[in-house]
């Protein structure tokens, strides 16, 4: 199956530890990921590799649900998880110190589905949607942490 990659980076006026602590709590993701309706059944409660949770996503009126698993949690540098059901994807947040601030990069690697999504959008449109979504997520994270 073909794969795609969306990435976006921004400087956030907050210490890396603060950024990491904000984004490494899975249930908090509904505050900065557009369309993500619900995170629940998080086990265990503390962020660590192997932690799993269920998600529900509103995709243009359709409810898409599945499971995710944390694959890397290295405070305050890297937080990574994979969606392990639904459309496979790997989400990596990298946080690097930049003076008193943080340079935050989100990289999402995903498979381009040939069935469900292809009915709604061509491959370039789908890739642009995901790139726009990555940009929006980092922008929202910056808004939540800076003000």
């Amino acid at each position, binding site marked *: 199956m073909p794969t795609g990659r969306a990435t976006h980076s921004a400087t956030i006026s907050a210490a890396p530890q603060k950024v990491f602590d*904000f984004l490494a*709590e899975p*249930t*908090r993701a*509904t*505050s*900065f990921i557009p369309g*993500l*309706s*619900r995170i*629940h*059944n998080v086990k265990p409660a503390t962020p660590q590799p192997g932690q799993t949770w269920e998600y*529900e996503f*509103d995709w243009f*009126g*359709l*409810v*898409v*649900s*599945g499971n995710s698993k944390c694959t890397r949690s290295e405070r305050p540098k890297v937080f990574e998880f994979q969606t392990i*059901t*639904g*459309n496979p994807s790997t989400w990596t947040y990298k946080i690097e110190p930049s003076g008193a601030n943080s340079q935050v990069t989100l990289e999402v690697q995903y498979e381009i589905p040939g069935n*469900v999504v292809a009915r709604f959008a061509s491959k370039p449109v789908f890739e642009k949607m995901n790139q726009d979504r990555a940009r929006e997520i980092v922008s*929202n994270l910056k*808004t*939540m942490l800076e*003000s």
Partner: protein
Amino acid sequence: MIRLRFLHPGRHVWRVWRRRDDGLEETWVSFRRVAPRWEKIFSSTLDLIWLPNTPQPGHIQLSDEHGLITWHESRWATRIIIRLRGFPAAKQSLVVTTLLKAARFHLLEEE
């Protein structure tokens, strides 16, 4: 296996009114048989996004005069009013959207 549904499994909460001036004010209506524990739903959501708050029966005050959440129960419905101020407009929008998601989905497993 991806799971698709046309109807979400959460509470029925709709935004019915919105006004933006120096802050953001929204009114929502929730139709339900039994009123959920709005105080816990909203207070724990605000805690989650690091917004200090003081919960009281029927309302929650955000610290530093950042706003107020009130709810009024009737037999079949709850009217919820959110007033946010003091944050940038972008943050107000994110917070109100987070609260609406919480009103629909947060703590569903307890009901």
